[in-house]
């Protein structure tokens, strides 16, 4: 009986105490027609050793690729200390800190996390995490609609430069509440929101305007202008940001003349492994005035009976377990342990370290772009400033090229054709601080070979 500690004697004693003869009797309130599930299709149990052998064999099938893809998930170096400390049993196997006095470790860590997110974003009040970047945006949209008292509209402007998956998730989550999502067009030369075209939206009321930075194409948006424009319309401004980029980019709390109202995004770059897509975490912060509209857990500092500082879950009146059908969100379990890891990551990196990582990503991506665009027929789709991702137009469909690259051990980027029909030959490439010049050279040589059949290269790299 794996994981069950009871000995036969103890089981007997327990049955005797209860006053039944057999375990079965404990289930005598279940209608007999419902009892006796057919489990033949479930395999027999295996010891940890055999499961380990099975899963190691499975893992071995997942052949590693040198990663030049981003598109929402980024391969950064994760200091060993992050997960060695995060997986300590006291963090790993605790529940949500309902009993504050027995959870000061997690609570203080969340308070520190909130502070760090607040610092990165320039907004006062962060929560303890949401599921991921996409759901964080969905929650931000719901929150903005609730919080915007000036404008009654349920329309929200989401430009095409927002991650397409985020857009899809927002749609799944918010449409049942009658919220309408409106596109804003791109400026096709620089790959960011077409500020000139915004004029045509000015006669419509919006609850909120979503502003990504950097955007899905890696380009930098004119965030100051967009924020002021949104506010001018009475809309709330929602920033969606890569938190590592915020170590060098201007914080959303300072965009335009007033700063955004809500900021959210994907926390994965802060020390979370790629892991095929999860678990990651969403982060969110807002101005103090909107804090009662925040979804999710929030930790506050307070004092105990003796006046000593302590930490506790606060503003619980927003949450589902108190407010039930009127809660700010249905979220209960969040991605706490990921936020623990991110807290440790941010503490280890500090602002100087994180800025170095961000700058190194930028530098590496410039090197990558330079090497790849030196290949005949490969050129940048846009020419505006970028952070660490760039769309490159290829002379061939991106999907095909990616397949060949993968066969040679390289994940060459993301095929934008998967989301934008007109961009079928565009590859979104990314280099983080992890990519070496040798790897970039290898990628360039491979691409040269694939596109132009330079046999010498094929031989050396194949």
């Amino acid at each position: 009986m794996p994981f069950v500690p009871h000995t036969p004697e103890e089981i007997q004693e327990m049955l005797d105490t209860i006053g039944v003869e057999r375990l079965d009797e404990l289930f005598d309130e279940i209608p007999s027609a419902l009892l006796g599930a057919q489990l033949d299709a479930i395999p027999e149990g295996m010891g940890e050793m055999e499961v380990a052998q099975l899963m190691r064999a499975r893992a071995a099938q997942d052949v590693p690729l040198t990663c030049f893809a981003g598109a929402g998930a980024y391969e950064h170096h994760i200091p060993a200390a992050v997960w060695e400390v995060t997986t300590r049993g006291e963090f790993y196997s605790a529940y949500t800190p309902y009993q504050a006095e027995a959870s000061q470790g997690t609570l203080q860590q969340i308070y520190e996390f909130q502070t760090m997110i607040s610092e990165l974003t320039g907004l006062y009040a962060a929560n303890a995490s949401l599921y991921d970047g996409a759901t964080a945006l969905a929650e931000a949209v719901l929150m903005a609609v609730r919080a915007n008292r000036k404008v009654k509209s349920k329309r929200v402007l989401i430009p095409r430069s927002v991650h397409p998956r985020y857009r899809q998730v927002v749609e799944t989550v918010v449409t049942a509440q009658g919220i309408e999502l409106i596109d804003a067009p791109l400026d096709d030369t620089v790959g960011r929101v077409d500020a000139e075209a915004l004029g045509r939206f000015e006669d419509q009321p919006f609850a909120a305007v979503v502003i990504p930075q950097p955007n899905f194409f890696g380009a930098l948006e004119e965030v100051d202008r967009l924020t002021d424009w949104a506010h001018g319309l009475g809309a709330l401004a929602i920033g969606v940001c890569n938190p590592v980029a915020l170590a060098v980019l201007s914080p959303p709390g300072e965009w335009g003349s007033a700063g955004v109202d809500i900021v959210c995004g994907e926390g994965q770059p802060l020390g979370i492994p790629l892991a095929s897509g999860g678990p990651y975490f969403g982060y969110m912060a807002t101005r103090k005035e909107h804090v009662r509209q925040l979804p999710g857990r929030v930790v506050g500092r307070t004092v105990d009976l003796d006046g000593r500082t302590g930490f506790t879950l606060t503003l619980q009146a927003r949450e589902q377990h108190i407010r039930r059908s009127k809660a700010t969100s249905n979220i209960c379990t969040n991605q706490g342990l990921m936020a623990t890891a991110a807290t440790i990551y941010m503490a280890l990196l500090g602002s100087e370290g994180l800025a170095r990582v961000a700058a190194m990503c930028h530098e590496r991506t410039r090197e990558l772009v330079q090497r790849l665009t030196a290949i005949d027929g490969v050129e940048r789709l846009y020419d505006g400033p970028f952070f660490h991702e760039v769309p490159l137009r290829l002379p061939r469909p991106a999907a095909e090229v990616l397949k060949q690259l993968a066969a040679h051990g390289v994940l060459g980027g993301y095929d934008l054709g998967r989301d934008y029909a007109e961009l079928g030959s565009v590859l979104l490439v990314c280099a983080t601080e992890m990519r070496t010049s040798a790897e970039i050279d290898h990628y360039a040589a491979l691409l040269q070979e694939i596109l132009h059949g330079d046999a010498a290269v094929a031989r050396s790299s194949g």
Partner: protein
Amino acid sequence: MLIYDISRPGRRAFAQAPYREPSADSLPRRFRRQSPPRLPQVSELEVVRHYTRLSQKNFSIDTHFYPLGSCTMKYNPRGANQLAMLPQFLGRHPLAPDTHGQGVLACLYELQQELAVVTGMDEVALSVMAGAQGELAGVAMIRAYHEARGDTARTEILVPDAAHGTNPATATMCGYKVREIPTGADGDVDMAALDTALGPQTAGIMLTNPSTVGVFERRIQEIAARVHEAGGLLYYDGANLNAILGKARPGDMGFDVIHLNLHKTFSTPHGGGGPGAGAVGVNQRLLPYLPLPRVGQEKGDRYRWLTEADCPESIGRLGTFGGNIGILLRAYAYLRMLGRDGMVRVADYSTLSANYLMKRLQAEGFTVAYPERRASHEFIVSLKKEAKELGVNAMDFAKRLLDLGYHAPTTYFPLLIPEALLIEPTETESKRELDGFVEAMVRIRKEAEEDPDAVKGAPYRLPVRRLDDVRAARDLDLRWEEHS
């Protein structure tokens, strides 16, 4: 002491960033921040020491008995953690081709299949990231179903008054009106009230079974028949599946859609708040609407992510990528260790422990909420009498339990039972721990009889004494400031 209190300007964990200072000069000035964020400036040792010491201030399964009702705080196998963290699993980019992820996809596919078997559903999807998100997906599927049939007058979701808060919150998020159904004196749904509530406006009902009051809903088949008759669908909140795992299946009970909290029944860690993972399962009726992505099997045992092209009627995506895959791998490892027999034993022994603990506390004179009923894997003690006679309430008992080395049960939930302690011992705790818990409860009552104020002052032995929650909410202090 906050990490900020040990921060000093110019200090760093040098080995953790590039030694050479890279240049970000090519980023135009107007996009760059003017002053650095105030992240802590600390050494690697300081970070490790600070968070190691912080961790020691937590109660956790690995350190304490943690009978938090409705949360299934059972042992999280270390093997599952280690295997989910194999380098190839951790290193794979979510957009890497399926050809380079057959290992992880095979695990997920098998998990889908096996969860379908054990719940009696036809198909399972794994991309939802917690129970509540499973509910969102489930209710969205109910909505999609009615809409596909043009049945647009269904505007209400029924929810028992004892339901978990996520149920009504979810129904609202999905654009439904919530209608509460009272719980009968025996702990089951009040059938008359149900009948009154049902109607052409009923989109569906959300039920937890065993319910949040810790008993099995005996008339579940009848409820299913009546709801279905009224044209509504049944949603199963799987938070309490641990009590019946491998014994009875929601699919057989008549549920159309379910979620599972894998971080409860399948023993993945709760991480001080999350991440969890919430599988959703459906019967044929709702199959087309399952959320994306899901893993499909092709000829030759090849696996791939199914997309919009495969499932055009899907309610869509609920996350950027495929969900909390690392957690799903842990659930998979756990499920394979349990196997067929192990699952049934989860139900057997979590139920045995709960009934034993209930009987012992009863024998010691505590009032249980439904003395005539079998406990499921959890049960409720009501401290109403103690609160009235001794002035020592459920919260006081909870805090004093912490002093005695036991995490408190869930307090004041469900709300319909006054001074409730919802107690869930799980199958992985030994009789010795259960007996120790009984002793602690008895001791606290004795203390309360002798000196109630002493109990009300608890805890005494933890890093802090009782915290001022009112002040926390009133004088909001949500982040460190330079001079605070």
